[in-house]
């Protein structure tokens, strides 16, 4: 079975990172991981997985609590540029984002570079989708969510 190179966004502690780690750790196929840590101060840089880590980056995510609008716009731009550079350098087969707002700038770069980007809504969202999930409906190559009450299109895992 060939190795798949996956760029994982939104790491650095918290629920999104836990969910992303659980997904990656559950995959029974060799993966090469490119990890993108984020958080108020770059986030916590730990990630436990049996898969090989081939790259690791530290980029502040937009839309963190406490950021002002102008700051968020600046970070958004920084993320688009960083996404272009990292996708071109690491050539992932797929970019995976769980819940994180970092998915939006990365989706812009991934679409231009023809790299698939998958967005999974956080399992904590049961009836009300996040703003990121609503935006990613039109940006992601694939959208996933768990609860069937969510007014989203994509793969509903509660029905799977």
């Amino acid at each position: 079975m060939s190795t798949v190179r996956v760029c994982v966004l939104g790491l650095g502690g918290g629920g999104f990172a836990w969910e992303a780690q659980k997904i990656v750790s559950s995959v029974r196929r060799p993966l090469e991981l490119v990890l993108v840590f984020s958080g108020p101060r770059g986030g916590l840089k730990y990630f436990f997985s049996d898969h090989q880590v081939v790259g690791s980056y530290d980029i502040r995510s937009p839309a963190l609590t406490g950021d002002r609008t102008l700051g968020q716009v600046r970070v958004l731009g920084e993320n688009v540029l960083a996404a272009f550079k990292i996708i071109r350098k690491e050539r992932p087969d797929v970019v995976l984002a769980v819940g994180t707002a970092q998915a939006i700038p990365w989706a812009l770069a991934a679409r231009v570079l023809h790299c698939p980007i998958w967005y999974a809504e956080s399992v904590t969202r049961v009836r009300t989708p996040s703003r990121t999930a609503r935006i990613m409906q039109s940006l992601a190559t694939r959208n996933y969510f768990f609860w069937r009450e969510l007014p989203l299109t994509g793969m509903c895992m509660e029905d799977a």
Partner: protein
Amino acid sequence: MIFVTVGTISFDDLVRHMDEAVSRGELTDVLLQIGSNGIYIPKHCEYFRARPGIDEYYRAADLVVGHGGTGTTLGVLEIGTRLVSVRNPTMSADHQDEFLSALERLGLVSYCRNLADLPTVIRRRLQEPKPPPCDVTRFFCAVVSDLEHFEKKASNMRM
């Protein structure tokens, strides 16, 4: 042992309620994780702010009291320790209520909606048998499956 965890974001109301319950003799053998920025310091319980390897405390505990965060909730369910969950209302985008209510419907957590009821809910839950470990991968099954069956195509990436 009852292990109480607030995760990375402080939840002083929960810590204070647990500490007061111990002071009144309603609960015993309580260990609190109060978060790196928790302000309320327990006077009647052992506590620590944050430590790596918190799963070991989940395993050692008879019951875990946790906030409604993903890592805590699914992490405890995966191990199979009794769990009483409390929503942290100070979280931005308060969706813990939705999440915990949904898990309660599935019979996976005891959701305590009022902190004043917490000692009663804990004592009742302690009377119940320990739950079996829950396969939390079910919450992510399609993503995992798609990664396992991902077919690499000749790259048409613009590089």
